[in-house]
């Protein structure tokens, strides 16, 4: 007993105690709900059995209901479109800006940091601002597009089913650009400058240098940014809540918003938890790949 106390006070037990405190918290409030969620997805859960500890086991019935739901596949397709388009544009624009700010000029790093002002504001407020920018009759976006001759008629960005999802994507790309840009800048800063000078001496043009040096050297950074992008895109909830609420008629609904709607607007908690289990499983696989790819650096 006294050996244990001594270890806690003076030895390795001290580190173990500090680490296990946080781990215990995360177990209670993250890991346990995760497991509990899986259990709920196999149970019948409604408003009456919400407080019960033991609920009727229904096997895969919740999942069968889910797959049979008419909106299931369209929402899953929306989720895929949302994630893929957001990542492609965030990465492309973020990379472009990172390359631009890599150049040597006055205030480059300070101006680059200012982009993060959009990232730091609550996503729900960003959603409110974009809802006003997107407004059909008096929105500034329609005005700018019409007056520059790009479109002829006002677009109803949020209430047209064929467009609503893409409007949310535009807002989310806007939110995600600074984070992508900053992470990619870090990767770019890690490429030795003399490599470029040597390549320039050998007659490689700017495009050749980008294609044959920058991109290969950035491969691991881009991989990490894409993984983080998937993770953060699937966390996006506030923009859907403030812009379209998944509508009209689920045309802009995605899995992470649908799960919440099922649980807390339709009170169909069992199906909500089934959606949640599917998506959490996917996120954890992506996170596993991400952590494994950066593990070497964590050890260093």
């Amino acid at each position, binding site marked *: 007993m006294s050996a244990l106390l001594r270890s806690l*006070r003076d*030895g390795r037990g*001290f*580190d173990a105690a*500090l*680490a296990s*405190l*946080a781990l215990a*918290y*995360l177990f209670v*409030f*993250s890991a*346990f*709900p*995760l497991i*509990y*969620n899986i259990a709920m997805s196999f149970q019948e*859960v409604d408003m009456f059995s*919400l407080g019960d500890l033991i609920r009727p086991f229904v096997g895969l019935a919740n999942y069968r209901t889910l797959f049979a739901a008419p909106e299931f596949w369209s929402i899953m397709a929306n989720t895929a479109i949302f994630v893929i388009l957001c990542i492609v544009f965030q990465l492309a624009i973020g990379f472009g800006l990172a390359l631009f700010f890599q150049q040597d*000029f*006055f*205030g480059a790093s300070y*101006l680059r*940091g*200012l982009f*993060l*002002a*959009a990232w*730091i*504001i*609550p*996503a*729900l*407020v960003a959603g*409110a601002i*974009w809802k*006003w*920018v997107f407004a059909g*009759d*008096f929105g*500034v976006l329609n005005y700018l597009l019409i*007056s520059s001759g790009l479109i002829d008629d006002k677009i109803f960005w949020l209430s047209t089913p064929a467009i609503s999802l893409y409007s949310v994507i535009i807002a989310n790309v806007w939110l995600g650009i600074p984070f992508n840009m*900053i*992470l990619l800048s870090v990767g770019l800063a890690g490429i030795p400058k003399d490599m470029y000078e040597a390549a320039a001496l050998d007659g490689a043009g700017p495009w050749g240098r980008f294609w044959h040096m920058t991109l290969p050297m950035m491969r691991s*950074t881009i991989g990490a940014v894409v993984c*983080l992008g998937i993770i953060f895109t699937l*966390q996006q909830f506030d923009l859907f*809540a*403030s812009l379209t609420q998944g509508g009209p008629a689920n045309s802009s609904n995605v899995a992470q918003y649908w*799960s*919440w709607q099922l*649980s*807390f607007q339709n009170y169909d908690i069992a199906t909500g*938890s089934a959606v*949640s289990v599917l998506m*959490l499983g996917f*996120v954890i696989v*992506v996170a*596993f790949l991400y*952590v494994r790819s950066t593990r070497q650096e964590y050890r260093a």
Partner: protein
Amino acid sequence: MKRYVLFAIALGFLAIYLFPLYWMYLTAFKPSSETFTYPPTFWPTDPQFNFIQVFVDKKMDVYLWNSLVVAAGTTVIAALIGTGCAYALARVRGVWMDVVLFLILMMQVLPPSLMATPIFVLFNQIGLIATPRFAVILAQTAKVLPLYIVLCRTSFLQIPKELEEAARVDGASRLTAFLRIIVPLARNGILVTSVLIFLQSFGEYVYSRTMISQEDLQTATVGLMNFMGPNTTDWNGIMTYAVIYVTPIVIVFMLLQRKIVSGLTAGALK
């Protein structure tokens, strides 16, 4: 010469990118008649100051106070629990600590909107929903604690081990050395990380919306959602609300910009 051109282009990019924020401030200063003119004006011809009126009408003092409670509670708990863990992870090398770090990183990625369902049912069963703001604090802490640990760990990594060993030779216990020597040295990193966690939690929405049903306990994000409603047209009021809510966040960010950016990049990729 080239540098000035680059600087001007950079300013142009920034202006285009931050235009939505400008539009928010501009709309907040416009009178409502000017808001609904077409074509819109890009500079207020008759600036209005509706801030006090919106603040009072929309009970923003209550909402902002609740957001403050959630953000402060989250930051305090995360700092109390996370600092020690970040230190242990920076100090000890081994398979066990790799496993702990791996688990923590995995807990970082869970989307709150998907965790809301099990957390709500669980908290409902153990009676935590009766104290909804506390429930939100607990859930939000679980969300931000991994980020706190990962970011703090990098500042502990920079402290030489010898400083602690010297204190130990002088007879200090591990706890004393940690609290008196290590934590003060990592003070800057801990503070910047705490500010980041605080700002993030100040804008929390999912858990507040899910778990807080009493209006006088709801946070500023939920208040803004209520204000927006399904068919609102009071965009002046909404943008004024947004300006009041967001301006302190933007100011704090501007002041700490450099430190937040460097902390973030060190933690996310290294």
